[in-house]
């Protein structure tokens, strides 16, 4: 069963291997000279204060973080997670193989969880490759990163991909078409992760805001998944980990309940 799921997922995951590759190349082909105080200071919006200072560990962490987990390439991994999750059930339904699958003496829970677990493992593999790039390439340039911080950040990023995978799985159970399920999943993830911040900024622009920025940040899931302090090894993000684990588990539970009840 796992072999079949791996065969099914490989055509989506093989292009996904390009993501850590591009991230690594992006780091490799960027000159070490770029990692200077001015560049980092520019990113920190603090030009005058640090212009003549040597690069600190935190500065290089900011730089590496922005080139690994905070890039468009990393976002592509979320799209890949949505594509994987959306196809898990919807593709079986649309091509008619769902009847063959359901005729096997295997519980629906096991069917769904096996599919989910295979995709989660594949995403973990890709995320680990990104983590390796974030550790090895900067170390080669003389800017070694905090291993524990990178590991924690990679786990948080993996949990983010699992949330996307789970939401896409729910959509896959409910919606028959894979593409539609993927689009609905991505829109749903956006609404749940970043919409509060966008609405807050909009309200600020119009002068309507009566709520504090911190409360809005707490409502945005993106806050918990992307933690620069944790990447730099300055803190252990208990709250982020806890929230990320819970929000990654919820859509899977919802998908299980829906799939158990779904009539075909």
């Amino acid at each position: 069963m796992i072999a079949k799921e791996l065969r099914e997922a490989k055509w989506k995951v093989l292009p996904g291997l390009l993501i850590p590759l591009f991230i690594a190349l992006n780091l490799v082909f960027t000159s070490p000279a770029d990692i200077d105080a001015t560049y980092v200071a520019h990113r920190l919006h603090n030009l005058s204060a640090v212009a003549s200072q040597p690069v600190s560990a935190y500065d290089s962490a900011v730089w590496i973080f922005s080139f690994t987990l905070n890039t468009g390439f990393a976002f592509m991994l979320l799209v890949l997670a949505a594509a994987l999750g959306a196809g898990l059930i919807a593709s079986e339904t649309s091509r008619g193989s769902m009847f063959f699958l359901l005729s096997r003496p295997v519980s629906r829970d096991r069917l769904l969880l096996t599919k989910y677990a295979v995709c989660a493992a594949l995403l973990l593999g890709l995320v680990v490759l990104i983590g390796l790039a974030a550790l090895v390439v900067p170390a080669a340039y003389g800017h070694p990163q905090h291993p524990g911080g990178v590991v924690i950040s990679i786990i948080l990023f993996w949990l983010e991909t699992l949330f996307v995978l789970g939401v896409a799985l729910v959509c896959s159970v409910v919606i028959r078409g894979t593409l539609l399920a993927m689009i609905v999943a991505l829109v749903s993830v956006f609404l749940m992760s970043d919409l509060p911040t966008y609405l807050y900024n909009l309200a600020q622009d119009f002068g309507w805001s009566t709520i504090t920025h911190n409360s809005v940040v707490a409502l945005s899931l993106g806050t918990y998944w992307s933690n620069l302090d944790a990447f730099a090894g300055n803190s252990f993000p208990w709250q982020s980990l806890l929230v990320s684990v819970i929000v990654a588990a919820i859509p899977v539970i919802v998908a299980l309940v829906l799939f158990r009840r779904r009539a075909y």
Partner: protein
Amino acid sequence: MAQVTALMEEERLNVTALHPQHDELTPAQYPPLSRSSSPAIEINNLVVSYGKRRAIEGLTLVVPRGSVYGLLGANGAGKTTIIKTLLGFRPPNGGSVRVLGYDVVRQRLEVCARVGYVSEENSLYTYLTIPQICAFCRDTSRQWHQDIVDRYLRLFDLPGNAKIGKLSKGMRMQLALCLALGNDPDLLLLDEPTAGLDPIARHTFLSTLVGDIASEGKTIFFSSHILADVEAVADWVGILRSGRLVLSGELDTLKQTHKLVRVTYAELPPESELDALRALPGVVNVEQEGRSVRLRVRGDADALATSVQERPYALRDVEVVNLNLEHIALAYLMEGRP
């Protein structure tokens, strides 16, 4: 028309009477049966709906073990819905369904472990090879007999390592049958297995069903809208129309009890005479062609022929003709159509 419908309903009840232990009791009062002695399929008052539309309406059906049961019906009659319900894909909205003694809602996995299923949509994974799909089936079965699968793969002359996507539709259906037999099932559920197959593939498929699988004592329940296929392999037949089972019984019994009485009048019979013929007991259907009138009869056709001869009209000839399944089925399937 109402009388014909009433007769069909009576026929349905008569079929249930073939199983006297169920005729006199409500389902809740059925005596407990051991699983090995229970019918292969036992459906009581089944209702299945798609939203507000009822696909199956109060269907009651018993399929004895070891039988080859052909379920006939037009497209959209509810054949596939019944098979989906038998496998637990779709829970019933009313009534109860037991397969091999197991409740399909509460014991779905027990049912699936003992049933082989071949789908109308022939939906195997096209990106897998035959050995790969065999491995998948082995991993998801409680017992797997690769020797049985290999035997039927050789019988159908299927290429050993071919990718499923490269196989023809007939070959895929044959492969699906091989896989369905891999867990040595007690019951085979085949949903339109010969639909879209060329005559040679159909012949091979059906002859394998009858010659090898049925002779091993397995129960086969298959749906089809091809009358010739059902007549070729089935020993029990059910006719489904708009979600209702309008006829069910042993094929031989149905042929014995359904006859055609051909009446030729000396002059064109008036409408009142046709109405009188329709009112005769056992007449299912009356068709007129000039001076000739054909009565499809359920029951004692000879007695009916005698009573027709006593009618106060000049008759030229009265003849009792045997019917094949096609004639019987069409009479029921066409009922109610303009």
